[in-house]
């Protein structure tokens, strides 16, 4: 099978596995609603000054901008979320990885194509949900989402998916050294979501911690695409953000390759 065919097959496998349990998939989209409700209620309470108006800006966002941020950030967070690191860990632990070492397909390429396939299936549904949410936001708050912002968002989202894949690829490979690391994945995930602006915009962390978090790669996985779509990042800032994100992706790719090379040397597939 030609190289492209192998990875196209892995991509197709990703689509099929995402759609295998459709009810579970739909429930997972429903799960994105609760953080939106919780954060909207909190922000509505905080912006309400008692005069019926929605108050001044908080943390650099007006009430409408904050609502837009909450909705888009939660959907982006849902879309870029990974889960393949558990499969990587399981392949390492059970010895199933040896199948990939002897077959003419790269494990990294297989996992990436599989991840891209599953995300493309989810992307269609979440894209429709996002479009509906944006239409509601436009109707009620007068927010507008131009073609340039949408195109920029698609580019930023692709970068976000790549970065999140690479971050959790590096974390998943720790399975070469540690056994039973499910908790580690969740520990990294909660830190990554917080540091990426998935719960609150990074401006809430103030002048001490905020700039540090802005400089880390996590920001490009949720806050950056969200701000691009909401029109807060455009033009030269967008190009600069995409460039910096790409640099982080290159660094994480190199790190992942180094961890893989070191890990495979100590991998022993006993009895598989």
């Amino acid at each position, binding site marked *: 099978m030609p190289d492209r065919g192998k990875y196209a097959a892995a991509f197709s496998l990703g689509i099929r596995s995402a759609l295998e*349990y459709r009810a*579970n998939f739909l429930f997972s989209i*429903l799960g994105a609603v609760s953080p939106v409700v919780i954060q909207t*209620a909190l922000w509505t*309470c905080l912006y309400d000054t008692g005069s019926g108006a929605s108050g001044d800006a908080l943390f650099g966002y007006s009430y409408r901008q904050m609502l837009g941020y909450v909705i888009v950030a939660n959907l982006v967070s849902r879309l870029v979320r990974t889960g393949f690191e558990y499969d990587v860990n399981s392949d390492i632990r059970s010895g199933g990885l040896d199948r990939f070492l002897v077959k003419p397909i790269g494990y990294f390429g297989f996992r990436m194509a599989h991840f891209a396939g599953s995300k493309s299936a989810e992307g269609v549904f979440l894209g429709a949900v996002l479009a509906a949410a944006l239409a509601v936001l436009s109707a009620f708050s007068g927010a507008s989402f131009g073609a340039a912002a949408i195109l920029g968002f698609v580019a930023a989202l692709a970068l976000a998916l790549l970065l999140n894949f690479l971050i959790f690829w590096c974390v998943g490979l720790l399975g070469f050294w540690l*056994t039973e690391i499910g908790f580690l994945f969740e520990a990294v995930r909660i830190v990554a979501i*917080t540091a990426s602006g998935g719960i*609150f915009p990074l401006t809430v962390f103030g002048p001490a911690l905020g700039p540090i978090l802005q400089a880390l790669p996590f920001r490009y996985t949720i806050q950056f695409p969200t701000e691009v779509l909401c029109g807060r990042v455009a033009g030269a800032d967008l190009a600069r953000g995409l460039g910096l994100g790409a640099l982080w992706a290159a660094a994480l790719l190199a790190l992942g390759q180094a961890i893989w090379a070191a890990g495979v040397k100590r991998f022993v597939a006993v009895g598989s």
Partner: protein
Amino acid sequence: MPTILREVRKHFRVYAVLLRMNLMSQMEYRANFVTGFLMELGYLAVKILYVVVAFSSGRSVAGLSPDEMLVFVGVFVTSTAFYAGIYMTNFFQLSAIVKDGSFDTLMTKPVSLQFLATLRRNDPAIFLVDFLAGSAMTIVGLSRLPGLLEAWRLLGYVFFLVCGAAVGYSLYLIPQALVFKLIDARAIAGISDSFWDFNNVPMVVYGKVGQAIGTYAIPMFLIASFPSLFALGRIGGAQLVWGGLAPVIFIAISRIAWKRGLKAYTSATG
């Protein structure tokens, strides 16, 4: 009656053995023990972040003082000890054990199937992190408020905390009954998980309709807001009655849902 008592005693004894086994298994994989601890610290930080954000905004949260907010967050963290330390892992694994057929093994054991399927895994480390951190925040908050740190109030608080944990358990279990039909129901566990997250902020934040839904229809506010309201002396008469009745009603509903769901189970290995 003696038969029921014997069964209860037997289940307590089994639970003590399960506690010991889980602790031993955690000690075996020490890295997982440490990372579990770190994970819970991460979740704890996020809970505290909600309060930090609310107060660094310089605005009032439904008229609550910073010390009252500290009590709310402290109670929420304490109640999370029950959730994360006692039943969360079981609910997240239910889908997997139904899928791979190991649920069959549980069916053969001479104890309640619901008990084994939903309580066999526990995490003493996570329980302790949340319980100690949450209790410390609650006590500090109460001690800074005049006349609230009293023995009878603390006893009532513990009662509502346990009632909240029982309601939380049933809120988790009711949707999970679908697992026997859908097989892959991990996302349902995720939705149930989100019930818990609604307690990240006090119930007063949600407005009247939201409060009514969260109190009577899906009583998630009984988990953390009711014990906090009692401790702060802000609980109403109707809430006092409902706080004691709801656990009985919802545990009964969850038991019925479990039994009905189980009828749809087909052994994956059979």
